[in-house]
């Protein structure tokens, strides 16, 4: 509980007097004046004015690369182990056989040049930016080579039979990290000193060994240092672009109790909880596994993620299966709504004539418009604590297959139906980022040296929903019996696989393949077809037959649909409002919401009041997007009445955002401060507070807020900008350096121009640029 906060209904021995905010809400209800509404929110949060007395801060600047730049790797301990020792796994395996075996299956163990995907990408960087730039990659992928200054300096710079190029992120690398920083790009300090070897039965030596190798104290930061990456002028590029960034999404999510986008009720989870669950050690090797607990279990070092290709490339069916199982828990899929569209494939304003939620049955006479029938397909990241798909966002190939089928199951029309085999399929909706070069051309092969701007990001933040509209022209509806939807996943695009496959057939590629065979006893063949995993599916019967489109409660389906529609362009926010009002009606009128039975549920079991509060918050977001601030604040005030205690951070966060949008900074600032206190891991919360204080002219306060946020995300451009403005206003000598930092890491000035250029020359870009966009179903080729 934050300082000064009134307790809410717990532990009272006398009849509790409601907090003032709640009393106000009761007395005045939705007719409250705006100021009173904000008071309801503020008083309920127990906000206080922060203490101000502290010395003036200087600039908090992002770390600059050192000896191993562009990577941010640092080395501690002076002379110690060399690269070969770091790459040595066999010694570790003598006492940790089970863990070492798990690691052998992991993608971590194939992080280096033995991996043809990595090798191909590094070759691209080297060709475009020069050999020194490859240290950007080496800081996380190639420690054994980095500490020997042996990252390739040219085509002949590395022997294919060099052990250091085949062990990736080895035991000694992870367990040698002594400090980890939040910057990313390998922002950790490695202690390369020789690890003290324990002597069986010698407790003191075991303790020394454990002390030297334990990374438990680092927690998630160990993962952060490499699972956050960015491109910048440090790499010789003209602009800064954020790349892989799991920590920002995870820290700002309900999995870290720092979600502010919605009221949610998921349990806290860390990287280790999800990717390194405990696993029983097989009895046969239990005696050879020193790290197993009394229950015979260890933290799994398989580090299962979504990389089915890597597992399949080496023929590891078990790891493929484990990975696919994890993927299938990631998302939910629903054909959430259907309705008419006009001749230009637009839904009527207010979704007039739409069925919310969609249920099996023949579309009524009003369901087909001049442009045909549309269905809204909703995908939700139900179980992944970072963006889904995660990792490097432009490389994944997760797409929707939508088919309009007849009674015999034959596809009459579809979208994405040929994507599995056609690398140039532009009709499918793909969950990825679109990155363009300096001319606005979409880059499809992860040519990072040419990256200039991100045009669109259709990956899903934790617990976020996304909607895609599919339009079936009226002439294709004849004989249609159902709409079927599948979300399918392949680790990498076919374009990238073609490049990797070609490289593997070169003499260098063959040589490395032999090296991998020698050291790892596997044959890596990147030309084999990648596994395709069906993550989820749904079916909407148009003929009244078949199962219901979703077993989940109607309110959940409509709630997710509305949530997803809030990402549409501004003038379509009214669609989200319509849908969420429907969700509100359902959640008010229906039976108590129940958890979904079995499988991945997008919505954990929640109390009826909480469900209502959840819908109200999303409805407030939609109404607020339409500029109706006071009405949105009213909805939030009611949400607060119904929400569990303590008040979820989503409520003050949205209120602060709404107030900031209309420049009511005095009211926004205390709410933003409350959000920071409740969701300290959320970078966006720090941005909101810093902006509010800066807008009020509280430069010292803005600087403090910026500092706190930069501690989480050192290159967040919004925070760097506020810091620079504040220091300049305070006439601090660090002001020029702060401005230079903002200038270095801000979004490229040409971003908007590149979006326009891309949309002009690429239909995919023009379509995908828009959130909640529409795809037109194309006739399927006749079946022979």
């Amino acid at each position, binding site marked *: 509980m934050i300082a000064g906060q009134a307790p809410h209904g717990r532990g009272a021995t006398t009849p509790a007097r409601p907090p003032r905010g709640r009393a106000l809400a009761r007395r005045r209800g939705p007719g409250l004046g705006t100021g009173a509404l904000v008071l309801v929110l503020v008083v309920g949060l127990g906000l206080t004015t922060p203490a101000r007395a502290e010395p003036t801060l200087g600039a908090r600047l992002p770390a600059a690369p050192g000896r191993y730049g562009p990577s941010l790797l640092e080395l501690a301990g002076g002379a110690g182990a060399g690269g070969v020792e770091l790459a040595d796994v066999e010694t570790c395996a003598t006492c940790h056989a089970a863990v070492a075996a798990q690691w052998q299956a992991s993608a971590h163990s194939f992080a280096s040049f033995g991996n043809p995907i990595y090798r191909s990408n590094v070759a691209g960087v080297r060709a475009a930016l020069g050999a020194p730039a490859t240290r950007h990659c080496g800081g996380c992928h190639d420690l054994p080579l980095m500490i020997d200054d042996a990252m390739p300096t040219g085509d002949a710079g590395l022997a294919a039979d060099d052990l250091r190029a085949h062990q990736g992120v080895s035991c000694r690398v992870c367990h040698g990290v002594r400090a980890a920083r939040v910057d990313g790009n390998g922002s950790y300090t490695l202690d390369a000193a020789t690890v003290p070897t324990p002597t069986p039965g010698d407790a003191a030596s075991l303790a020394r060994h454990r002390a030297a190798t334990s990374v438990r104290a680092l927690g998630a930061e160990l993962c952060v240092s490499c699972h956050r990456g960015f491109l910048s002028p440090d790499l010789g590029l003209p602009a800064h672009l954020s790349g892989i960034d799991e920590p920002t999404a995870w820290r700002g999510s309900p999995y870290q109790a720092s979600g502010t986008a919605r009221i949610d009720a998921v349990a806290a989870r860390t990287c280790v909880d999800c990717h390194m669950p405990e696993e029983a050690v097989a009895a046969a090797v239990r005696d050879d596994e020193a790290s197993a607990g009394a229950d015979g279990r260890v933290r799994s070092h398989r580090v299962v993620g979504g990389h089915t290709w890597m597992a399949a490339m080496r023929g590891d069916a078990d790891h493929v299966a484990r990975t696919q199982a994890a993927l299938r828990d990631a998302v939910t899929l629903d054909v959430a709504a259907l309705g008419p569209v006009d001749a230009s494939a637009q839904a009527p304003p207010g979704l007039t004539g739409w069925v919310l939620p969609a249920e099996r049955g023949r579309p009524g006479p009003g369901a087909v418009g001049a442009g045909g029938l549309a269905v809204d397909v909703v995908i939700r990241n139900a179980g992944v604590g970072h963006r889904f798909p995660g990792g490097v966002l432009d490389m994944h190939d997760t797409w929707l297959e939508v088919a309009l089928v007849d009674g015999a199951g034959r596809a009459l029309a579809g979208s994405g139906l040929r994507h599995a085999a056609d690398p140039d399929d532009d009709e499918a909706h793909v969950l990825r980022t679109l990155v363009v070069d300096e001319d606005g051309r979409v880059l499809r092969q992860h040519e990072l040296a040419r990256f200039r701007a991100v045009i669109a990001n259709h990956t899903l933040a934790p617990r976020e929903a996304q909607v895609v509209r599919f339009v079936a022209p009226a002439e294709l509806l004849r004989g249609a019996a159902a709409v079927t939807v599948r979300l399918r996943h392949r680790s990498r695009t076919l374009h990238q696989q073609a490049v990797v496959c070609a490289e593997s057939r070169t003499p260098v590629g063959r040589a490395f393949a032999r090296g991998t065979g020698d050291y790892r006893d596997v044959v890596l063949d990147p030309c084999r077809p990648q596994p395709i995993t069906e993550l989820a599916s749904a079916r909407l019967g148009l003929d009244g037959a078949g199962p219901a489109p979703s077993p989940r409660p109607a309110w959940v389906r409509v709630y997710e649909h509305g949530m997803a529609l809030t990402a549409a362009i501004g003038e379509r926010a009214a669609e989200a409002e319509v849908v969420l009002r429907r969700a509100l009606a359902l959640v008010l009128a229906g039976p108590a919401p129940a958890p979904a039975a079995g499988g991945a549920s997008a919505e954990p079991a929640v109390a009826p009041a909480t469900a209502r509060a959840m819908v109200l918050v999303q409805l407030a977001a939609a109404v607020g997007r339409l500029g109706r601030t006071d009405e949105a604040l009213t909805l939030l005030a*009611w949400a607060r009445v119904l929400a569990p205690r303590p008040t979820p951070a989503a409520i003050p966060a949205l209120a602060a955002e709404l107030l900031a949008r209309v420049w009511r900074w005095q009211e926004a600032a205390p709410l933003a401060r409350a959000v920071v206190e409740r969701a300290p891991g959320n970078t966006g919360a720090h941005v909101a507070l810093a902006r509010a204080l800066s807008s009020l002219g509280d430069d010292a306060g803005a600087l403090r807020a910026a500092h706190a946020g930069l501690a989480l995300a050192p290159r967040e451009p919004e925070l760097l900008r506020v810091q620079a403005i504040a220091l300049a206003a305070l006439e601090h000598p660090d002001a020029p350096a702060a401005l230079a930092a903002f200038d270095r890491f801000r979004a490229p000035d040409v971003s*908007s121009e590149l979006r326009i250029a891309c949309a002009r020359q690429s239909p995919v870009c*023009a379509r995908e640029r828009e959130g909640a966009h529409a795809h037109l179903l194309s006739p399927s080729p006749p079946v022979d």
Partner: protein
Amino acid sequence: MKTGMRRWTLAAAMALAAAGVTAGGSERAEAFCGFYVSGAGGEMFNDATQVVLMRMGTRTVLSMQNNYKGPPSAFALVIPVPVVLQEADVKTLPAEVFKKIDQMGAPRLVEYWEQDPCQPDYEREASGGRGVAFSAAPMEADKASKDDLGVTVEAQFTVGEYEIVILSAKDSTGLETWLQQEKYQIPAGAEPLLRPYVSGGSKFFVAKVNPDKVTFADGRAQLSPLRFHYDHDDFSLPIRLGLANSSGTQDLIVNILAPGQRYEVGNRPNVTIPTNLDVKNEVRERFGEFYAALFDRTMEKNPGAVVTEYAWQATTCDPCPGPQLDYHDLATLGADVLAGERGQVSAYQGWDFVHTRMHARYGKDNADDLVFKQAAPIIGGREVWSGGWDDVNRTLEERSKPAGTNAFQGRYAIRHTWTGPIACDKPKRGRWGGPPDGGGGGVKPALDLAFAPRGQAKLEAFVAGDVPELAVKATSATAPVDPAGATPPPAPVVEPMGKRKSGCGCSSDAGGGRAVLAAALVLLVLGRRRRRQEAGRR
């Protein structure tokens, strides 16, 4: 930096702020999305702005025409934008295109003469009973516009009276410093207004004006229209900066052109102007004054509303107060930078633009940015009668109503009843068309509405019939009227008139507020019940 701020003098008037200052007196001012700065000090005002927005997908093209009232020395417009513009994103436009679109969307006055009740029906029967409007000849108008305007967008970066300077994101963080370096002065009170823009990451472009290239009349200069475009998810019009420090009321007319799409505002009530009203003969000379009264009454009935005055296919009209927009006009206003349709990579060449015209009037305490939302098509204000010519009870289309296509306008008619001989057994009354002498009628648009006389006459005195939606009872409700008798007056010419609109045939609650309140009451009850249950458990 603060020191610099303190040095600023009251030299620049924040965009509409300036307008607001004048609005406190007898003048009115229109909105402006930026502010003026100068090196010489002195008060500077902007009292007339027109805005045309073109929107498709995430692309917005914003064109605006401003005037300037202040010292005839070097000054500049400073305009915040959401992204850093590139040189090619900023252009100047010919003023003619603004006149054209203003004329096209403006409320119009038409005159009709009752036709000889004994005349055979001829074409009227074939045309389904529609009346004859006094339209300009569309084809001729189209030809004229092509000849006159051609491809009109100027590509030069320094053009006419402007030298355009686009500040980078870095420079934008130090806007005041930059302006100081450029020897411009900003009002001392500007800091709290500018700060949120700067803190929020707005970018700026500056249009320096060379006074030697501007013609001043009565201390005013009409500046060349500016156009810029950008890519953004939100579709809104920032007006707050312009209103800061304003103590008065602002008028703003927003024209939106979008393929196949009408727009409304999402954050205020929307109303359509009462239309198809018959008015008295004197309105011919006082159309602006009449419309101002109608508009003001509409706003009284719908406080805070934004009034839709026009929603029509952009390249057609009926009646036409002037030449229609043609492709060159659309290209001038932004179609050249809209992406093509699905699968196309060329500039947008569709002819399906819908022209929506909205009129807002607001004060300092209601100056949130206008947020636009998509709206369904409406019709209204046409010379469309229910029933056939023989139906004595037929009525003229009233107000606005949903339809499959957009065809709504604010249209007001002076009707001259037949006063000639009636020499047949079954005269057919109520057939309206051109003057008896066979000459063409006229269509008069209401232009320069910001300067319309106000408060000098009552609406009741202007209308020939009641206007129930505004609770207006005509002082003489005997419509149609015919003060002119059999000799029609000369066809009115199109001329500027000060006027405002009114309206409100169709009102919509912007927020579904009642539903919210109802839901909230239910929630309150549920919340109380829950708390009682919790208390019981405890």
